[in-house]
């Protein structure tokens, strides 16, 4: 039941079908909503479909668990390697699950946050299509499919960043984002052509079977470089990150949460998948390690200097990507598990941080940390959720951020790169400085005539739910660890099965 067949010979994974259906029908629903005056129909339609998406991810996961190490291959319009295909394994479902979770929470949050805006039909359509794009990237089995859904995700995100087009900020940020991100896509296309030239196929399994383990030649290194540029722009690796501090603050609140929480991680996932399939870790280890250190350090230092709350959180996202790169550079299942766990945890924590910041901007219209002094006393629930998310981002124990961070640092030591671990912990301590500054500012006494009310109940409820998840996953991490472990093992140890699933057909 997890495959839908729109045409006789092709199949779509169920979550993808759900999201595409939802996104495709939403314009009609929007039209209906305007004609009949049922104003909330759009929001409810979007919430319903994102909930269905979550359920279908769960069904897909259950299918995979039926036999461990199972890989499902489904193809569009023909059979691989001549046509595009989806290759669904635990890792893909893990990523799609993260997308679904954060997407659902963000859509529920938008119910109140975006109610004053116009063009809501476009908004929800784009959100659903962006989620469809990310799910497609997670489940893709070859480059063709990946690129199509990559662009779907990208284009939706360009428009969503620039959504509030009556202000100059989003337009400027959106344009810069578009230029940089499209350049990245062009490099991605270039790297695809290089792969095509070297191996004659774009299918991941065939690619892995032919190119992996080959001695690094200049062409392969060029390929690695273009892949890093192509995926790195979207995942905001320094020095390709310059679009992010502009784009994420200017986007509307829930979109910032989605962008920081899961879009850049999808870029990282794609980087992880493709580089692991194409190269043995020894080829790219030192590059990734260097990128990790640079990303963490530069981003943390820049974050210290910020006065705008959302910009600070944006730089913090860049540094968290740096931590995830540590896991990638180890090349071991344990390290990758740390990265994957951190993807889940960061999506919850950064998503919550941006949503709580969204509460604050929704109520006060301001983003300046100094001007918002004391806002925590007037919005206690928001402050509680924001504090939990910031403590989690800093890696304080009892939050899930600590669990994934310590696994990452531990894996770095175990893989023989203790310098990475030291750099990581020092950056962690450094980041605590600016998180503490935000927290301390917000809970101190307000100056002058500053007044703010607590945000609407639904928004606060979403915040508190995410905060609860953060604490729960921090104190009982076993389920999440088991899931991430299965996902990372699927990539590292299950590589043979992955290849067999397609090549053996």
């Amino acid at each position: 039941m997890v495959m839908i067949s729109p045409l006789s010979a092709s199949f779509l994974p169920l979550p993808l079908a759900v999201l595409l259906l939802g996104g495709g029908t939403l314009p009609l629903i929007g039209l209906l909503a305007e004609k009949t005056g049922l104003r909330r129909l759009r929001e409810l339609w979007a919430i319903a479909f994102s909930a269905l998406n979550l359920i279908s991810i769960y069904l897909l996961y259950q299918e995979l668990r039926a036999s461990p190490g199972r890989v499902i291959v489904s193809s569009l319009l023909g059979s691989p390697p001549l046509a595009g295909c989806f290759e669904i394994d635990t890792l893909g479902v893990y990523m799609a699950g993260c997308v679904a979770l954060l997407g659902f929470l963000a859509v529920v949050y938008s119910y109140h946050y975006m109610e004053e805006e116009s063009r809501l039909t476009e908004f929800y359509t784009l959100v659903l299509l962006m989620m469809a794009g990310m799910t497609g990237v997670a489940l893709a089995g070859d480059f063709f499919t990946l690129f199509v859904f990559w662009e779907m995700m990208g284009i939706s995100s360009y428009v969503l960043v620039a959504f509030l087009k009556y202000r100059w900020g989003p337009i400027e940020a959106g344009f810069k984002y578009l230029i940089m991100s499209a350049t990245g896509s062009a490099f991605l296309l270039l790297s695809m052509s290089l792969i095509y030239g070297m191996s004659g196929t774009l299918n991941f399994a065939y690619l892995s079977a032919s190119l992996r383990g080959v001695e690094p030649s200049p062409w392969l290194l060029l390929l690695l470089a273009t892949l890093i540029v192509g995926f790195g722009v979207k995942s905001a690796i320094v020095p390709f990150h310059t679009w992010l501090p502009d784009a994420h603050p200017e986007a509307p609140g829930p979109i910032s949460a989605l962008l920081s929480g899961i879009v850049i991680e999808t870029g990282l996932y794609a980087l992880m998948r493709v580089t692991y399939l194409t190269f043995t870790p020894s080829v790219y280890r030192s590059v990734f390690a260097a990128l990790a250190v640079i990303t963490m350090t530069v981003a943390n230092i820049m974050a210290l200097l910020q006065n705008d709350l959302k910009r600070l959180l944006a730089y913090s996202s860049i540094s968290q990507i740096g931590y995830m790169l540590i896991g990638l550079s180890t090349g071991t299942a344990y390290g990758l598990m740390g990265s994957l766990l951190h993807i889940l945890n960061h999506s919850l924590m950064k998503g919550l941080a941006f949503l709580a910041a969204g509460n604050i901007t929704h109520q006060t219209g301001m983003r300046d940390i100094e001007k918002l002094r004391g806002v925590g006393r007037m919005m206690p629930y928001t402050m509680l959720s924001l504090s939990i998310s910031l403590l989690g981002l800093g890696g304080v124990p009892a939050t899930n951020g600590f669990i994934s961070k310590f696994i990452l640092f531990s894996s770095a030591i175990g893989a023989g790169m203790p310098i990475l671990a030291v750099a990581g912990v020092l950056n962690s301590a450094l980041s605590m400085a600016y998180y503490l500054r935000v927290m301390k500012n917000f809970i101190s006494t307000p100056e002058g005539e500053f007044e703010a009310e607590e945000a609407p109940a639904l928004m606060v409820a979403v915040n508190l739910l995410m905060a609860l998840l953060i604490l729960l996953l921090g104190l009982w991490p076993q389920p999440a660890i088991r899931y991430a472990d299965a996902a990372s093992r699927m990539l590292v140890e299950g590589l043979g099965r992955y290849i067999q699933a397609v090549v053996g057909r």
Partner: protein
Amino acid sequence: MNALIPYLVSVFLLLLIGLGCLMMKRDMIRMLIGLEILFNAANLNFVALSLSRAGFVDPLGQSIVMMAIVLDGCVIAVGLAMVLNAYKHYGTLDVRKLRRLRW
């Protein structure tokens, strides 16, 4: 391989021109054109490499190019829409004026 060299050199040149356009031009529309050139460099690479396989033209390469052209078109369309909106706000197409968002 030797038959490919002119194509590969052109691809390289197009890359340089595209990147140069993006980095050096001030007009937003010219930057979008530079982006187009970059995309076309990648497309050309695909076409060139599809020619060299096994004596016949590989349909995979060509179909990728078709898809890429469609997607690039969408991206450029969105970009042009943003340029339009930017003109409404800033009154100019000079990208150096878009510096209100500081570091």
